[in-house]
């Protein structure tokens, strides 16, 4: 899959289109990411398949990156851009630690990620991000982004090629009141950590059935009060 910039045609007489570019700076390496926020935990998961076009590049690539003690970034899209974005955020976090003598909180990292993405508004990072972690009160938080930094905190989210298969299932299982309803309701799910991890495994197994870019294995990262732990579950390899 290659992303092509299409011109916007405003005139009605003899519209001109410029020739299809022979080369695109972007590529989509596929894959899906999911995150679910709980009362005192956060689950972030992504499959480990990296592809290009109809081929698989590797079955064992991690899309998940831990930036701070309490925030984990999962991104699907163009992995080269994603790697550059991760390094950028790491550097910014180090500087923050030196200047302010503390780690960045997850909401602070969420804002930083948004600004970093918007900074490249006119040549975006081809990255579809989900940031998960614990906020200052220890509650789970999930932030999902578009390619240019628009973001929203929610109770759960998914991004990537399998997003449209997974999101409706999460909506059905985890839906909470809209953040626009007053008084503001908590968006974290009442599910236990174990149940949330189980739900994630089920959704990935389902997505891997129909989405050709999702499969091989799913890496699941769980952050809670005690720290960070990882699980790996195999998926269909076809």
């Amino acid at each position, binding site marked *: 899959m290659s992303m092509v910039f299409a011109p916007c045609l405003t005139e009605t007489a003899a519209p001109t289109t410029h020739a299809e570019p022979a080369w695109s700076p972007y590529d989509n390496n596929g894959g899906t990411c999911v995150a679910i926020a709980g009362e005192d935990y956060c689950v972030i998961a992504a499959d480990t398949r990296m592809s290009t076009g109809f081929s698989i590049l590797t079955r064992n690539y991690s899309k998940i990156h831990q930036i701070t003690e309490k925030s984990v970034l999962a991104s699907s899209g163009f992995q080269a851009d994603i790697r550059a974005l991760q390094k950028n955020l790491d550097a910014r976090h180090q500087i*923050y630690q030196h200047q*302010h*003598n*503390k780690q960045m909180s997850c*909401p*602070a990292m969420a*804002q*930083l990620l948004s*600004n970093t993405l918007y900074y490249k508004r006119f040549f975006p990072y081809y990255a579809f991000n989900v940031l998960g972690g614990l906020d200052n009160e220890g509650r789970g938080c999930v932030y999902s982004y578009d390619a240019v930094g628009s973001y929203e905190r929610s109770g759960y989210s998914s991004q990537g090629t399998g997003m449209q298969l997974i999101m409706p299932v999460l909506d059905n299982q985890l839906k909470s009141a809209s953040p626009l309803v007053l008084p503001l309701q908590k968006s974290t799910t009442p599910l236990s950590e174990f149940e949330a991890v189980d739900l994630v495994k089920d959704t990935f197994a389902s997505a891997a059935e129909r989405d050709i870019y999702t499969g091989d294995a799913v890496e699941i990262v769980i952050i809670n009060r005690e720290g960070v732990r990882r699980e790996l579950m195999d998926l269909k390899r076809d």
Partner: protein
Amino acid sequence: MEIDEHIGCAMSGLTADARTLVEHGRVETQNHRFSYNEPMSVESTTQALCDLALRFGEGDEESMSRPFGVSLLIAGHDDNGPCLYHTDPSGTFWQCNAKAIGSGSEGADTALQEHYDLNMTLEEAETLALSTLKQVMEEKVTSSNVDIAKVAPTYHLYTPQEVEAVIQRL
């Protein structure tokens, strides 16, 4: 003057110079809120002001050829609770529980040292501050020649009525 919702400062010396520092502090704290969606810590704000004091200003054109001739007392409230910092033209800063700056500062500092207690209430602190000021001021303390501000936990400059109320308690 207010630097951010949770930080205020008092100045002594060439107060015209102080305005540049306060403006810089305001810009820095707002930049921080923009980048990180959180209030900037008081120590970091103080550090930012001291960085400016050290460089005699910023950039090629706006930088001065002399130090900022002003000491500041930065008072604020952040994750570590309420705190107070004292800066001087060299760009050094110290954290204090109580401090006086200005022409009458020596006498005032001694008075503060005697009467300050870590567990004071806000009212006791108001009274202490104003009575210390009264000791070193030549004129009588009135609501029109004294300003009081507090950060508890947000910045608030007292109205003349509120100042009058504190004066009554002296």
